């Protein structure tokens, strides 16, 4: 019993460390003054902490613009992905149509197509359509990348809401749409929020398409990659950039997690 408990705690600690270690390391590195960063051997725990690098990083106009771009692209992606995925997921969850399994598999199979192979034709097409170097263009690609997963998540979320609840609402006078809005949607909201977070993080982290399809309107990861690869940005800049990429994901997960658990003021069982 005690041994089992010990093993459980050890496993929990290990898992936590696995997740937290990189975050802690990058946070520490980002908060280490420039001189200390280049010292050898570098102490594991820096002697002094300073936010000088982070604040100077955050004050750069290019970074702020890229941050804004990233948020705009992610927001746009969430809207577009939800518009496409929610009806598709609902249909997959509710209607037993012919070939449903095949459709479901086909949706996932699109993920097997390498995005790299699409890069050049996509760039050409976007230039032709006037989408090249626009936020909408990047958001469209991110939507395409996230939609297969989001459809499957949303379908399972809707499957979790019993069809009888919709039928009850309809028997009480609601239309099909009304039943969805009043019953299914509020009940699916936590799951839909999770899908939205997923989409946000996918878009926030996406580098490849964002780098290829933009020149002046770069998102934050694209900006960082560009400055590191093309301009050879110094170490402290990289750490600060890395920390900036991690931060919003953490904040959002912390905020949403509580929301997921206490949505209806009662424990959701």
């Amino acid at each position, binding site marked *: 019993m005690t041994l089992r408990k010990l093993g459980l705690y050890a496993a929990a600690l290990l898992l936590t460390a696995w997740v937290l270690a990189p975050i802690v390391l990058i946070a520490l590195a980002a908060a280490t003054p420039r001189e200390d960063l280049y010292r050898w051997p570098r102490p594991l725990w820096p002697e002094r902490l300073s936010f000088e690098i982070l604040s100077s990083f955050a004050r750069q106009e290019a970074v702020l613009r890229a941050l804004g771009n990233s948020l705009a692209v992610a927001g746009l992606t969430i809207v577009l992905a939800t518009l496409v995925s929610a009806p598709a997921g609902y249909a997959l969850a509710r209607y037993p149509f012919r070939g449903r399994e095949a459709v479901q598999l086909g949706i996932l199979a699109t993920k097997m197509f390498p995005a790299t192979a699409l890069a050049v034709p996509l760039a050409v097409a976007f230039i032709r359509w006037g989408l090249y170097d626009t936020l909408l263009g990047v958001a469209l690609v991110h939507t395409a990348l996230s939609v297969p997963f989001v459809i499957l998540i949303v379908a399972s979320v809707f499957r979790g809401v019993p069809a009888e609840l919709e039928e009850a609402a309809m028997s009480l*006078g609601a239309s099909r749409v009304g039943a969805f809005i009043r019953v299914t949607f509020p009940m699916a909201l936590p799951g839909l929020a999770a899908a939205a977070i997923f989409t946000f993080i996918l878009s926030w982290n996406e580098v490849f398409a964002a780098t290829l399809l933009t020149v002046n309107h770069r998102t934050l990861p694209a900006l960082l990659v560009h400055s590191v690869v093309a301009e050879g940005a110094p170490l402290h800049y990289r750490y600060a950039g890395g920390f900036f990429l991690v931060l919003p994901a953490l904040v959002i997960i912390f905020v949403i997690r509580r929301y997921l658990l206490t949505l*209806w003021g009662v424990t959701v069982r």
Partner: protein
Amino acid sequence: MAEIRLEGLHKRFGRVVAVRDVSLEIREGEFVVLLGPSGCGKTTVLRLVAGLETPDRGRVWIGGRDVTRLPPGRRDLGMVFQSYALFPHMRVFDNVAFGLRMRGVGVAEQRRRVEEVAELLQIADLLDRYPAQLSGGQRQRVAVARALVVRPQVLLMDEPLSNLDALLRLHMRAELKRLHREVGSTTVYVTHDQVEAMSLGDRVAVLREGQVVQFDTPTQIYDHPSDRFVGSFLGNPPMNFFQATVDPEDGSLRVEGVKFPAPVAYAQALAERRGGPILVGIRPEHVSVGTGPLRGEVLVAEPLGAQKLLTVRTAQHLVKVAVGPDHAARPGEHVALDLPEAHLRLMDAQTERALPRR
């Protein structure tokens, strides 16, 4: 309040025919139970009435209005689901008020009517809770209140008691009966529990493989089942059946070689079957033990409180006999059985359908 008329309803799911050619006329204010084993199509019939399914053929009339193509919300009905289907994200009050809001009833009137129906179902002190905070019996009451508050013409219930424990089920069964007397709405009630059907229904429709095999009052169905299936499905233990023949000379019944006088009511039907096989049914409480021409050995004696149930093996049959609780029969004992003429129910040996009585 309205009458319901089902005309030749037919519904299939893929290759499975769930409902075939069901026609029923349910009177205004009547409590009708759809009874049958699982998979007999009773729930599908209810869902066709509700508008949750569309029939492949046939029509549904409620209160003289053809509602076959109308969505559920415009049929003026209330439905209680087996799972109760309470909205978990709404308080009890909002659950009950849902139908009123859909009908655009004013806020003050909503409150008045919710409180009225809450009083009727004794859930007035639960209105601020969420469904997750209620017990099974309370949820059931809320589900009924939610269906009743809109004062529907028709109340539909799909196995509403099946998720309750035995004692609560007994209690709620009586409650539902009281409720129906007070509200008086035309009610269609689906169950696979024959006791529920007998105790609640003004009339019971027995379904089998998507068809109505008998539609009558509970006593009539119990006393005069339309076929062997109904005889064995209703009653606990089920009706006894004997393979017998009709005597070629005098038209009496021969069960295991023993002669029994045939009931007069069947005289005409038997006349054309002389010398042929026949199926003889009798309820366990009507088999008399003590004197009689049929010999058997008691295999099991089960005291059930109000009565004692004997399983008797005769030469060719196993017979269930219900006797008084003080009956002295013991396992291994040899007994004589009689099959009183008045209680014999005769059926065709092939079709197993009841023979016509006069």
